[in-house]
């Protein structure tokens, strides 16, 4: 009887549940996404700088080098199963950078390979990357048309 009465006061009840439930994951999750995502960008900057200083690249080639290298590393880490662990730890820190775009292509392609090389591997490469490209390219064409027609 006494035990039940403890929970009749709503304020006391919510205070109790607050004490007993684990701390909100919001701050910790944001922190993990922040430092991992930030570090991936730092790695990208280092690759671009290396391209400019050591390989005599112009800015545009260096930017392509950055994308290609990060995509390659992500594909490899996805293949050996490390990227999934990074994704679980860092959340958006791993999928907001271009690494996430690469992982979104490799991961389903690997998983659905047994459904065939064409409709399995080939099609599933684009199950998530497809929509990203559809809307990205679509919007950029629209911007280009408006720019060409009204600002030229």
């Amino acid at each position, binding site marked *: 009887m006494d035990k039940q009465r403890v929970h009749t006061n709503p304020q006391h009840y919510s205070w109790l549940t607050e004490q007993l439930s684990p701390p909100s994951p919001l701050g910790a999750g944001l922190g993990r996404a922040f430092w991992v995502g930030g570090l991936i*960008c*730092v790695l990208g900057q280092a690759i671009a700088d290396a391209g400019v200083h050591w390989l005599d690249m112009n800015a545009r080639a260096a930017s392509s080098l950055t994308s290609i290298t990060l995509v390659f590393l992500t594909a490899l880490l996805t293949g050996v199963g490390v990227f999934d662990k990074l994704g679980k730890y860092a959340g958006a820190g791993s999928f907001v950078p271009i690494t996430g775009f690469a992982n*979104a292509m490799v991961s389903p392609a690997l998983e659905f390979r047994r459904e065939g090389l064409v409709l399995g*591997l080939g099609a599933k490469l684009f199950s998530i990357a497809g929509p990203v490209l559809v809307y990205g390219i679509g919007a950029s064409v629209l911007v280009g048309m408006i720019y060409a027609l009204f600002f030229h």
Partner: protein
Amino acid sequence: MSLLWMYLKVFLVGGALCAIGELLVLRTRLTPARILVCYILTGVLLSAVGLYGPLADFAGAGATVPLTGFGHALCQGVMSAVDEVGLIGAFTGGLSATAGGIAAAVFFGTLIALAFKPRAK
């Protein structure tokens, strides 16, 4: 010192863009695929109105490596192609500018999917 400052800017801006994505995951329950679409569209839009360029100048890879930077590259590619060849550039510029990343993802993605076995989740 200036190199250190540059890398600090890259880290802070890149980290902040990722933290915003994580906030969307935790607070809105949007799936990562939707967030990526939102990011690329945001990048195209901010680039078109001239806001993303200054951020990319300020933060380098901190602004260009996140998916918003992919949108920015699409948009800048389209606009400079329009400057060069006119309306047709609206169709050719975006993919030209982003070809490296896309082709690499297709090529290495296929290679890795062929070379490795899928593992249990």
